[in-house]
Protein backbone atom coordinates (compact mmCIF):
# COMPACT_ATOMS: atom_id res chain seq x y z
CA UNK A 1 0.00 0.00 0.00
CA UNK A 2 1.34 3.42 -0.96
CA UNK A 3 0.85 6.25 1.56
CA UNK A 4 0.30 9.92 0.86
CA UNK A 5 2.75 12.17 2.70
CA UNK A 6 2.72 15.89 3.50
CA UNK A 7 6.12 17.50 4.15
CA UNK A 8 5.95 20.80 6.07
CA UNK A 9 9.18 22.81 6.16
CA UNK A 10 10.05 26.39 5.27
CA UNK A 11 13.34 25.31 3.70
CA UNK A 12 12.87 24.22 0.06
CA UNK A 13 16.12 22.26 0.12
CA UNK A 14 15.06 20.41 3.28
CA UNK A 15 11.74 19.49 1.67
CA UNK A 16 13.67 18.20 -1.35
CA UNK A 17 15.99 16.24 0.91
CA UNK A 18 13.10 14.58 2.76
CA UNK A 19 11.52 13.65 -0.58
CA UNK A 20 14.82 12.15 -1.63
CA UNK A 21 15.24 10.20 1.61
CA UNK A 22 11.69 8.90 1.38
CA UNK A 23 12.57 7.55 -2.05
CA UNK A 24 15.76 5.94 -0.76
CA UNK A 25 14.07 4.45 2.29
CA UNK A 26 11.92 1.87 0.57
CA UNK A 27 8.81 3.34 2.22
CA UNK A 28 5.94 3.15 -0.23
CA UNK A 29 5.04 6.74 -1.07
CA UNK A 30 2.03 7.55 -3.19
CA UNK A 31 1.32 11.25 -3.46
CA UNK A 32 3.95 13.48 -1.80
CA UNK A 33 2.84 17.03 -1.07
CA UNK A 34 4.72 20.00 0.36
CA UNK A 35 3.88 23.05 2.46
CA UNK A 36 6.14 25.89 3.61
CA UNK A 37 4.34 26.55 6.92
CA UNK A 38 1.46 25.42 9.10
CA UNK A 39 -1.13 27.55 7.34
CA UNK A 40 -0.29 26.09 3.97
CA UNK A 41 -0.25 22.62 5.52
CA UNK A 42 -3.78 23.00 6.86
CA UNK A 43 -5.00 24.08 3.42
CA UNK A 44 -3.42 21.00 1.83
CA UNK A 45 -4.87 18.73 4.51
CA UNK A 46 -8.38 20.08 3.94
CA UNK A 47 -8.14 19.56 0.18
CA UNK A 48 -6.32 16.22 -0.06
CA UNK A 49 -6.23 12.84 1.63
CA UNK A 50 -3.01 12.59 3.63
CA UNK A 51 -1.83 9.53 5.57
CA UNK A 52 1.05 11.06 7.50
CA UNK A 53 2.52 14.51 8.13
CA UNK A 54 6.25 15.25 8.46
CA UNK A 55 6.70 18.69 10.01
CA UNK A 56 9.48 21.02 11.03
CA UNK A 57 9.07 23.16 14.17
CA UNK A 58 10.66 26.54 13.44
CA UNK A 59 8.88 28.14 10.52
CA UNK A 60 7.82 31.72 9.84
CA UNK A 61 4.08 32.23 10.03
CA UNK A 62 2.37 29.24 11.64
CA UNK A 63 5.11 27.10 13.18
CA UNK A 64 5.08 23.40 13.96
CA UNK A 65 3.79 23.81 17.51
CA UNK A 66 0.80 25.83 16.37
CA UNK A 67 0.15 23.37 13.56
CA UNK A 68 -0.01 20.51 16.08
CA UNK A 69 -2.44 22.52 18.22
CA UNK A 70 -4.69 23.15 15.21
CA UNK A 71 -4.58 19.50 14.22
CA UNK A 72 -5.45 18.42 17.76
CA UNK A 73 -8.44 20.73 17.80
CA UNK A 74 -9.83 19.41 14.52
CA UNK A 75 -11.99 16.31 14.85
CA UNK A 76 -10.96 14.97 11.45
CA UNK A 77 -7.38 16.13 11.05
CA UNK A 78 -6.32 14.94 14.50
CA UNK A 79 -6.55 11.35 13.20
CA UNK A 80 -3.62 11.96 10.82
CA UNK A 81 -0.35 11.03 12.53
CA UNK A 82 2.27 13.79 12.62
CA UNK A 83 6.00 13.17 12.92
CA UNK A 84 8.22 16.10 13.88
CA UNK A 85 11.57 16.42 12.09
CA UNK A 86 13.86 18.87 13.84
CA UNK A 87 17.47 19.75 14.57
CA UNK A 88 16.48 20.13 18.23
CA UNK A 89 17.00 16.86 20.09
CA UNK A 90 16.76 18.25 23.63
CA UNK A 91 14.52 16.26 25.95
CA UNK A 92 12.43 19.31 26.79
CA UNK A 93 11.56 19.92 23.14
CA UNK A 94 10.77 16.28 22.37
CA UNK A 95 8.43 15.96 25.36
CA UNK A 96 6.76 19.26 24.47
CA UNK A 97 5.99 18.19 20.91
CA UNK A 98 4.73 14.77 21.99
CA UNK A 99 2.49 16.50 24.55
CA UNK A 100 1.10 18.67 21.74
CA UNK A 101 0.07 15.57 19.83
CA UNK A 102 3.05 14.51 17.70
CA UNK A 103 3.06 10.73 17.26
CA UNK A 104 6.74 10.63 16.38
CA UNK A 105 9.92 12.72 16.62
CA UNK A 106 12.96 12.49 14.36
CA UNK A 107 16.04 14.53 15.15
CA UNK A 108 18.50 15.41 12.41
CA UNK A 109 20.67 13.74 11.29
CA UNK A 110 18.63 10.68 10.36
CA UNK A 111 19.00 7.87 7.87
CA UNK A 112 16.48 6.67 5.29
CA UNK A 113 16.04 3.53 7.36
CA UNK A 114 15.19 5.36 10.59
CA UNK A 115 12.67 7.52 8.72
CA UNK A 116 11.05 4.43 7.19
CA UNK A 117 10.94 2.67 10.58
CA UNK A 118 9.33 5.69 12.24
CA UNK A 119 6.72 6.05 9.51
CA UNK A 120 5.87 2.36 9.66
CA UNK A 121 5.58 2.58 13.45
CA UNK A 122 3.20 5.55 13.55
CA UNK A 123 1.10 4.23 10.67
CA UNK A 124 0.96 0.81 12.32
CA UNK A 125 -0.30 2.45 15.52
CA UNK A 126 -2.88 4.41 13.52
CA UNK A 127 -4.13 1.25 11.81
CA UNK A 128 -4.26 -0.65 15.10
CA UNK A 129 -6.31 2.09 16.72
CA UNK A 130 -8.82 1.94 13.85
CA UNK A 131 -9.21 -1.85 14.00
Amino acid at each position, binding site marked *: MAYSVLIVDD*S*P*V*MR*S*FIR*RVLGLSGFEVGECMEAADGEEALARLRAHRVDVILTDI*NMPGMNGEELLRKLGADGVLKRIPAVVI*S*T*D*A*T*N*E*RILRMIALGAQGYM*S*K*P*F*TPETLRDELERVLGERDASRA
Partner: protein
Amino acid sequence: MPPELEHQSMMMDQEPTASDTIREVAAEVLETMFFTEAELATCEHSWLAAAACARIRFEGSHFGEMLLGVSLEAAGPIAASFLGLEPVELTDTQHGQVIQELSNILCGAMLSHLWPESKLALLSPELTPWQEWPPAGLLHRCFTIPEGMLAISIRLAPPAQPAGNQ
Protein backbone atom coordinates in the same frame (compact mmCIF):
# COMPACT_ATOMS: atom_id res chain seq x y z
CA MET B 1 35.50 38.10 30.35
CA PRO B 2 32.11 39.67 31.18
CA PRO B 3 30.61 38.23 34.40
CA GLU B 4 27.49 37.01 32.60
CA LEU B 5 29.70 34.80 30.43
CA GLU B 6 31.71 33.25 33.22
CA HIS B 7 29.09 30.71 34.22
CA GLN B 8 28.42 29.60 30.64
CA SER B 9 32.12 29.46 29.85
CA MET B 10 32.74 27.28 32.89
CA MET B 11 30.05 24.92 31.67
CA MET B 12 31.79 24.59 28.32
CA ASP B 13 35.21 24.19 29.95
CA GLN B 14 33.90 21.55 32.32
CA GLU B 15 32.38 19.56 29.50
CA PRO B 16 35.19 17.08 28.82
CA THR B 17 33.66 15.78 25.62
CA ALA B 18 32.87 19.09 23.90
CA SER B 19 35.69 18.74 21.35
CA ASP B 20 34.86 15.09 20.80
CA THR B 21 31.23 16.04 20.31
CA ILE B 22 32.07 18.46 17.49
CA ARG B 23 34.11 15.78 15.75
CA GLU B 24 31.54 13.02 16.24
CA VAL B 25 28.53 15.12 15.29
CA ALA B 26 30.20 16.58 12.20
CA ALA B 27 31.15 13.10 11.03
CA GLU B 28 27.66 11.73 11.67
CA VAL B 29 25.84 14.63 9.99
CA LEU B 30 28.04 14.60 6.92
CA GLU B 31 27.88 10.85 6.52
CA THR B 32 24.15 10.48 7.19
CA MET B 33 22.67 13.45 5.36
CA PHE B 34 25.40 14.61 2.97
CA PHE B 35 26.80 11.19 2.04
CA THR B 36 30.43 12.16 2.59
CA GLU B 37 33.12 11.62 5.23
CA ALA B 38 34.78 14.13 7.56
CA GLU B 39 38.10 13.68 9.35
CA LEU B 40 39.82 16.07 11.72
CA ALA B 41 42.48 18.20 10.05
CA THR B 42 45.19 20.57 11.16
CA CYS B 43 43.92 24.15 11.11
CA GLU B 44 45.26 26.14 8.17
CA HIS B 45 42.78 28.89 7.45
CA SER B 46 43.89 30.59 4.22
CA TRP B 47 41.14 28.78 2.26
CA LEU B 48 38.45 30.32 4.49
CA ALA B 49 38.77 33.75 2.86
CA ALA B 50 36.94 32.39 -0.20
CA ALA B 51 34.78 29.84 1.62
CA ALA B 52 31.00 29.56 1.66
CA CYS B 53 30.05 30.42 5.25
CA ALA B 54 26.94 30.53 7.40
CA ARG B 55 26.43 31.84 10.92
CA ILE B 56 23.67 30.68 13.23
CA ARG B 57 22.80 32.07 16.66
CA PHE B 58 21.20 30.17 19.52
CA GLU B 59 19.44 31.29 22.69
CA GLY B 60 17.67 29.86 25.70
CA SER B 61 19.52 28.20 28.56
CA HIS B 62 22.71 29.00 26.61
CA PHE B 63 23.39 31.94 24.29
CA GLY B 64 25.94 31.93 21.50
CA GLU B 65 26.65 31.33 17.86
CA MET B 66 28.20 28.87 15.45
CA LEU B 67 30.10 29.65 12.29
CA LEU B 68 30.45 27.11 9.48
CA GLY B 69 32.89 27.43 6.60
CA VAL B 70 32.94 25.14 3.56
CA SER B 71 35.71 25.49 1.00
CA LEU B 72 34.59 26.81 -2.34
CA GLU B 73 35.37 23.62 -4.27
CA ALA B 74 33.41 21.54 -1.75
CA ALA B 75 30.25 23.66 -1.51
CA GLY B 76 28.83 22.58 -4.86
CA PRO B 77 29.40 18.83 -4.47
CA ILE B 78 28.05 18.89 -0.89
CA ALA B 79 24.89 20.69 -1.98
CA ALA B 80 24.47 18.34 -4.92
CA SER B 81 24.93 15.31 -2.70
CA PHE B 82 22.31 16.59 -0.22
CA LEU B 83 19.75 17.13 -2.98
CA GLY B 84 20.64 14.14 -5.13
CA LEU B 85 21.48 16.34 -8.11
CA GLU B 86 24.50 16.91 -10.31
CA PRO B 87 26.55 20.00 -9.30
CA VAL B 88 25.83 21.67 -12.65
CA GLU B 89 22.09 21.41 -11.98
CA LEU B 90 22.27 23.56 -8.83
CA THR B 91 21.39 27.24 -8.64
CA ASP B 92 23.33 29.74 -6.51
CA THR B 93 20.25 30.00 -4.31
CA GLN B 94 20.30 26.26 -3.66
CA HIS B 95 24.03 26.40 -2.85
CA GLY B 96 23.35 29.00 -0.18
CA GLN B 97 20.29 27.26 1.20
CA VAL B 98 22.14 23.97 1.62
CA ILE B 99 25.05 25.64 3.43
CA GLN B 100 22.52 27.31 5.74
CA GLU B 101 20.74 23.99 6.28
CA LEU B 102 24.05 22.27 7.04
CA SER B 103 24.85 24.92 9.66
CA ASN B 104 21.38 24.49 11.15
CA ILE B 105 21.69 20.70 11.39
CA LEU B 106 25.24 20.82 12.77
CA CYS B 107 24.43 23.45 15.38
CA GLY B 108 21.23 21.76 16.55
CA ALA B 109 22.86 18.35 16.79
CA MET B 110 25.93 19.67 18.62
CA LEU B 111 23.96 21.66 21.17
CA SER B 112 21.58 18.76 21.77
CA HIS B 113 24.55 16.46 22.38
CA LEU B 114 26.39 18.95 24.59
CA TRP B 115 23.38 19.95 26.68
CA PRO B 116 20.52 17.45 26.25
CA GLU B 117 18.62 18.83 29.23
CA SER B 118 18.76 22.41 28.01
CA LYS B 119 16.05 24.55 26.44
CA LEU B 120 17.39 26.08 23.26
CA ALA B 121 16.12 27.84 20.17
CA LEU B 122 18.10 28.28 16.96
CA LEU B 123 17.63 31.47 14.99
CA SER B 124 17.62 31.46 11.19
CA PRO B 125 21.10 30.93 9.73
CA GLU B 126 22.56 33.68 7.56
CA LEU B 127 25.25 33.62 4.90
CA THR B 128 28.27 35.66 5.94
CA PRO B 129 32.02 35.92 5.32
CA TRP B 130 34.24 33.85 7.63
CA GLN B 131 35.31 35.58 10.83
CA GLU B 132 38.27 34.67 13.00
CA TRP B 133 36.92 34.82 16.54
CA PRO B 134 39.17 35.33 19.61
CA PRO B 135 40.41 31.96 20.90
CA ALA B 136 39.24 32.47 24.51
CA GLY B 137 36.25 30.21 25.14
CA LEU B 138 36.13 29.15 21.49
CA LEU B 139 35.45 25.61 20.33
CA HIS B 140 36.93 25.24 16.85
CA ARG B 141 37.73 22.34 14.55
CA CYS B 142 38.77 21.95 10.91
CA PHE B 143 37.96 18.87 8.87
CA THR B 144 38.98 17.38 5.58
CA ILE B 145 36.25 15.92 3.41
CA PRO B 146 36.84 14.21 0.06
CA GLU B 147 35.52 17.31 -1.71
CA GLY B 148 37.62 19.89 0.21
CA MET B 149 37.68 21.48 3.67
CA LEU B 150 35.20 22.39 6.39
CA ALA B 151 35.58 24.51 9.54
CA ILE B 152 33.33 24.91 12.57
CA SER B 153 33.57 27.49 15.39
CA ILE B 154 31.22 27.73 18.36
CA ARG B 155 31.31 30.39 21.04
CA LEU B 156 29.04 31.48 23.86
CA ALA B 157 27.79 35.04 24.18
CA PRO B 158 26.02 37.17 26.79
CA PRO B 159 22.22 36.89 26.83
CA ALA B 160 20.53 39.52 24.68
CA GLN B 161 19.50 42.59 26.67
CA PRO B 162 15.82 43.57 26.50
CA ALA B 163 15.19 46.79 24.57
CA GLY B 164 15.52 49.81 26.81
CA ASN B 165 17.64 47.93 29.33
CA GLN B 166 21.04 48.72 27.87
